[in-house]
C-alpha cells in the first residue's frame, strides 16, 4: 500500500448528510463513516432513510466505510442497559450488512474506579461476541478514554480475554492519548495485529487540560502512526473533534484533513521528522 484509504465521519461536518458528502468528496476522501445524521443515530434510520443514504452515497461516488452506534457505552452492572445495548448492536449489525460492511464498533462499558476488571468486561460482552460469531460478523472494540478499554494496552488485554476471531480493534490514537498512553508507537504496538479500522484526531495538553487539535498540530506522532497504517489495507477515518476558534466544525474538519494529508505527504516521501 502506498496510500491511505481515507474516510471522514459525516457528522463532524454536518447533520445535513448530503452537504457532508459534498464536502467529503471535495476533500478527496473515498469513504464516509456514518454515525449521526439528520438528527439521529444511524441505527434509528427508517427503511426509507437507509435507501436515501445509499442513493446519496452512490450519487457522490463515495463508499460507506462503516457505521457507528454507541453499543455498550453503558454501565457494566446494569443488566437492563446491557440488554438494551445488545439490541442496539443487533440493529447496527443488520444495518451494516445492508451497507455491505462486515464490522461495527462497540465500546467496553463506562469505567468505574475499582469496580470491575477487564475480565469482567469480557464476560459481560460475551452475548455480543456470540451474536457476532453467529452472524459471521466482526466487532471492533473502540478504545475510549471513558471506558474500560481506553488504551492500546487495555484493548489488548480485553481481546486476549475474549479469545474470539470475531472481535478486533478500532484503534483511536487520540482516545489513547486522552487516557495517558503514548499512542504511537507504544499503544499501537499492542493492537497492531488486530486493527481493522482507525479514527484519527490529534490532541495535546494545554492549560491543564486535554485538548483536541487538528492532525499534525498536537503531540501524537502521526508520521509514525500513518507510516504503519500505510502497510495495512484498511480504511482510516478522520474524526475531527477539533473545533477552531470560529466554532465552525466544517472548517475544523477541512483544517484537520489538510493536516492529515500533509503528514501523509511527508511519510510517503520518506521524510520522517521523528526517530521511531
Amino acid at each position, binding site marked *: 500500500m502506498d496510500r491511505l484509504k481515507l474516510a471522514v465521519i459525516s*457528522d*463532524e461536518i*454536518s*447533520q445535513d448528510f448530503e452537504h457532508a458528502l459534498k464536502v467529503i468528496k471535495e476533500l478527496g476522501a473515498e469513504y464516509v463513516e456514518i454515525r*449521526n445524521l439528520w*438528527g*439521529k*443515530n444511524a441505527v434509528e434510520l427508517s427503511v426509507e432513510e437507509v435507501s436515501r443514504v445509499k442513493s446519496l452515497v452512490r450519487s457522490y461516488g463515495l463508499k460507506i466505510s462503516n457505521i457507528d452506534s*454507541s453499543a455498550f*457505552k*453503558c*454501565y457494566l*452492572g*446494569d443488566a*437492563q*442497559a446491557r440488554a438494551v445495548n445488545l439490541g442496539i448492536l443487533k440493529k447496527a449489525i443488520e444495518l451494516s450488512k445492508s451497507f455491505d460492511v462486515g464490522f461495527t464498533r462497540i465500546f467496553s462499558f*463506562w469505567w*468505574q474506579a475499582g469496580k470491575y476488571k477487564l475480565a469482567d468486561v469480557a464476560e459481560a460482552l460475551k452475548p455480543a461476541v456470540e451474536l457476532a460469531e453467529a452472524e459471521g460478523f466482526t466487532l471492533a472494540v473502540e478504545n475510549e478514554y*471513558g471506558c474500560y478499554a481506553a488504551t492500546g494496552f487495555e484493548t489488548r488485554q480485553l481481546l486476549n480475554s475474549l479469545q474470539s476471531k470475531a472481535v478486533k480493534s478500532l484503534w483511536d490514537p487520540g482516545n489513547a492519548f486522552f487516557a495517558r498512553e503514548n499512542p504511537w508507537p507504544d499503544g499501537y504496538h499492542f493492537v497492531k495485529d488486530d486493527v481493522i479500522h482507525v479514527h484519527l484526531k490529534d490532541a495535546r495538553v494545554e492549560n491543564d487540560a486535554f485538548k483536541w487539535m487538528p492532525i499534525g498540530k498536537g503531540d501524537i506522532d502521526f508520521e509514525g502512526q500513518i507510516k504503519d497504517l500505510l502497510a495495512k489495507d484498511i480504511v482510516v477515518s478522520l474524526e475531527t473533534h477539533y*473545533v477552531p476558534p*470560529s*466554532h*465552525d*466544525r466544517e472548517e475544523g474538519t477541512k483544517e484537520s484533513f489538510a493536516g492529515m494529508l500533509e503528514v501523509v505527504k511527508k511519510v510517503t516521501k520518506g521524510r520522517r521528522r521523528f526517530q521511531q
Partner: protein
Amino acid sequence: MKLAFSSLAYPDLTLTDVVKRVSKMGYDALELRVADDGRHLRPSYPIREEDGVALRGVEVSDLAAYARFSDNPVENESSMKLIETLADIASALRALGVRVYAGNASDFDALAEALNSAAELAGSHSVKVMVETHGPLLDKVSNLARLLPKLRGVWILYDPANVIFAGGKHEEVFPLIRDKLAHVHVKDYVLRDNNPLYCAPGQGVVPLTSIMDDLKSSGYNGYVSVEWEKMWHPELPDPDSVLPAYRVYLKRWIG
C-alpha cells in the same frame, strides 16, 4: 403534541420519585432540570449509574439546563463547554434538545454567532439547542425580531407567560417564531404586587386557549411542558394537585 412537566415542580423529591409521577399524573414525558446543584441531574457525562436507572423507561423531552450565551466571549466559551456535556447527556437520554438562555447583549451578531455555534456543536450529537423566550433579552418581542433572522439551526423554546409578563403579546410573537418552535412552556399567572403569582390554567392572564389553538393549527407536534416553578416559589400549591389540573385543561388540544 405531547405533554410534559418540568422537574422544577418537585425540588424536594428524588429523581426516582419525580420520574414515577410522569405516568402517575398521565403525562408523556419529563422536562429534566440539569444544574450544578444536582436537582435533578448534574451536568456531567456519563450520568451516574443510579440516575440512569432512575430515568429508565421515562421519556425525557429536553434538558432544562443553564447554559447562557451573550456577546461576552468568556461567558460563551464556558457555555460552549457546558453544551458539549449537555449534548452528550441529551443524546444518551434521547432527549430532543437542550434549553439555553440569551443573556445581556448589545451586539446581536456576536450573540447569534455564539448561539449558532452551540447549535452546530449540539447538532453533531443529534441534539437541538433551544433558546428560551426568557429575560433579560428574549422575553421582548423587539429583541426576538432582531435576533431571529441571524440564527441558523437554533430552535425556540416558547414560554408565553414570560413574554406576556414582559409586556408582549402572544399574537405578536407567535408569527415570528412558529417555524422555529421546538418546545413550549405552559403556565398561567395573575399579577400580585407587580409580580407573577402562578395559578391554575385558565385562571390567569395568559391566553392559553389562543396559544394552544395556534399551536394546533400551525401543526406543532412537539412537547407542551407545564413549568410549575415550585423550586423558585415554595409557597405555590402542591404540584401533585396542580399538574393533574393542567393535564385535564390541556387535554382538549393534546388528546
